[in-house]
């Protein structure tokens, strides 16, 4: 089912938890709501579920305005962060509960519950109480309970945050599998960028109740709309440097190195004397061909997995770069790093908004198109 949110706002006494949020979630899509703790993700989900009623704005399920409908009526499935399994009921009874509320005959309810338990692979645990299950098993029960009544929408509030790292990886693939098998529209809340980027069709990144960017995961990663998005995504985090306009280029971090900055499409930012640039650590490459963009002294080297992470000093700033371990680098060496033009992001110092270079705007448009077709 298609969901449309129209200028949704939710105020608690002092705080505005969700601020004028508008978006459309397409049928069968898995959308992640991503953002730091306290940015309004859960509140948004509660508004979708009907457990909270918005201060203003509308919610549409299909063409129906459901803004005033209670949670009992909306027919949604929800997985809570702490699962909220009924502690006094067995796994089977937990899964059957929504059907019991719909007055489905007991025999049919039991069959459907068992079917659902098999889908989430807990068929062998039906007689246990929630207290006797591991975190991962509880989560599967919660998903089964949410799906058993064949809801139009599945809402998941940080369903993986109580699991350990390995299980988390496994369960997020599992959630994706189940979601696609059932073909349900799903909204997945998380504060973990990796989770959001890996399983969703679309990511909405929120901060202070406001959507910062709403786009496909890879696009968001490669084309952050503002500095917050750029720095929230990526591990190790993006390098943000301040560059200052000089006579023949932009000076990098009080050093003697200069950077050529393209012209930008939006000339209304009249003051471009100081701008921020962002480069992801993995977008650097070590070079000896003279096409380097940055040159500096290596002050730290560590190996993480198959990559080598170096910290390099340029003037009074340092940058992090992930480089190919085959380069024989030592602390104290001078290192030359290149980066392709498209991998440098420019941001307005005051607003933090992305600056779009002129000659790349055509290219951007083409890339957008291609990703949408993919």
């Amino acid at each position, binding site marked *: 089912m298609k969901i449309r949110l129209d200028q949704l706002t939710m105020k608690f006494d002092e705080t505005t938890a969700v601020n004028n949020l508008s978006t459309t979630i397409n049928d069968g899509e898995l959308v992640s709501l991503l953002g730091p703790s306290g940015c309004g993700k859960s509140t948004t989900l509660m508004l979708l579920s009907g457990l909270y009623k918005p201060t203003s704005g509308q919610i549409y399920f299909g063409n129906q305005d459901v803004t005033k409908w209670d949670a009992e009526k909306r027919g949604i499935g929800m997985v809570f962060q702490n699962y909220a*399994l*009924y502690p006094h009921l067995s796994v089977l009874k937990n899964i059957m509960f929504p059907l019991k509320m719909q007055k489905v005959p007991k025999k049919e309810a039991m069959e459907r519950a068992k079917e659902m338990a098999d889908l989430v692979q807990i068929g062998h645990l039906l007689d246990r109480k929630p207290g006797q299950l591991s975190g991962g098993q509880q989560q599967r029960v919660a998903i089964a309970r949410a799906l058993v009544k064949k809801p139009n929408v599945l809402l998941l509030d940080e369903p993986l945050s109580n699991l350990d790292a390995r299980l988390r990886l496994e369960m997020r693939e599992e959630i994706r599998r189940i979601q696609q098998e059932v073909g349900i529209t799903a909204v997945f809340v998380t504060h973990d960028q990796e989770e959001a980027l890996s399983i969703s069709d679309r990511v909405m990144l929120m901060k202070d109740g406001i959507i910062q960017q709403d786009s496909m995961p890879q696009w968001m990663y490669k084309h952050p709309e503002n500095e917050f998005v750029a720095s929230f995504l990526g591990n190790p985090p993006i390098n943000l440097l301040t560059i200052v306009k000089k006579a023949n280029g932009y000076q990098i971090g009080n050093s003697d190195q200069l950077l050529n900055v393209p012209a930008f499409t939006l000339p209304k930012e009249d003051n471009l004397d100081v701008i921020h640039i962002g480069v992801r650590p993995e977008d650097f490459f070590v070079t000896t061909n003279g096409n380097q963009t940055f040159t500096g002294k290596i002050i730290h080297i560590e190996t993480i997995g198959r990559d080598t992470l170096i910290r390099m000093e340029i003037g009074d700033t340092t940058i992090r770069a992930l480089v190919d371990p085959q380069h024989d680098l030592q602390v104290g060496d001078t290192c030359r790093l290149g980066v392709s033009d498209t991998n440098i992001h420019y941001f307005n110092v005051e607003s933090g908004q992305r600056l779009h270079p002129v000659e790349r705007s055509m290219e951007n448009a083409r890339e957008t198109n291609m990703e949408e077709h993919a």
Partner: protein
Amino acid sequence: MLEKPTWKSTLRGFLYLSPALLILITFNIYPIIRSFLMSFYTDYDYFNDVVHAFGLDNFITIFQDPSFLTALKNTGVFVIGVVPISIALSLGIAVLLNNKLKLAGFFRTIYFLPFVTSVVAVAIVWSWIFHSDYGLFNYLLSWFGIDPIAWLNDPKYAMPSLIILSIWKGLGFNIIIFLAGLQSIGKQYYLAAKVDGASAWSRFTNITLPLLSPTIFFVSIISIINGFKVFDEVFALFNGRPGPANSALTVVYYIYQKFYEEWQFGLASTAAFVLFIIIFIFTIIQLIIGRRFVHYN
């Protein structure tokens, strides 16, 4: 963390407990044992504390005493009349109060009032409410065209009066306990149940009742025990009489009569012992039922 108990640690433990134990033994355990033994004194010279004969005669005597049988029956009626209504009523009020009622502070004072007020004061007020000529109760009933009832002087109505007073008096304590129990139920279960399509009533029967069952169990045990022990209310409401024509004579009142009015210490102890056995059996039954239906986390 827990150390293995050793002789030394056990001894030290008893040392810490000894002040409390000493008081408990002197004023509780010892009298219980004494009265248990006393119920077998068939010939007792209490001036010189000499027992001339032991036996089961006391048991035979009281079970042949119509007053004791009346007391047993009345006590049973009282417990059946008070406990279920009191629990249902206080649970209902607690649920309402728990749902963020306006003026919650005001109500908290109101419903706690009976609990902190002395039984005697309460009973005096209620004896006015029940007064056949000037009483509030009859006044209210007159609105519905019901003739005045001699609540406290008619043997038919004495027990209902006592039950009404006791229900009212027990509310405060029960509500407090229920409120605490309700507040310990996680909000998330109600949210989940709403999402699962449960109406308010379904949420009450499917979430509140089962998760509150340990509290309900606790309150019902306490209420039943207290019901069997009823005395003060009778004494105060009927001015030191067990109601008209023994209509509000309870087992504890019977014990009181035998002990303080007739100086039949043996019979009084025997009746107390019988009451103890009754309460004991009821509690055991409740524990057995409780094990089946009560959900503990």
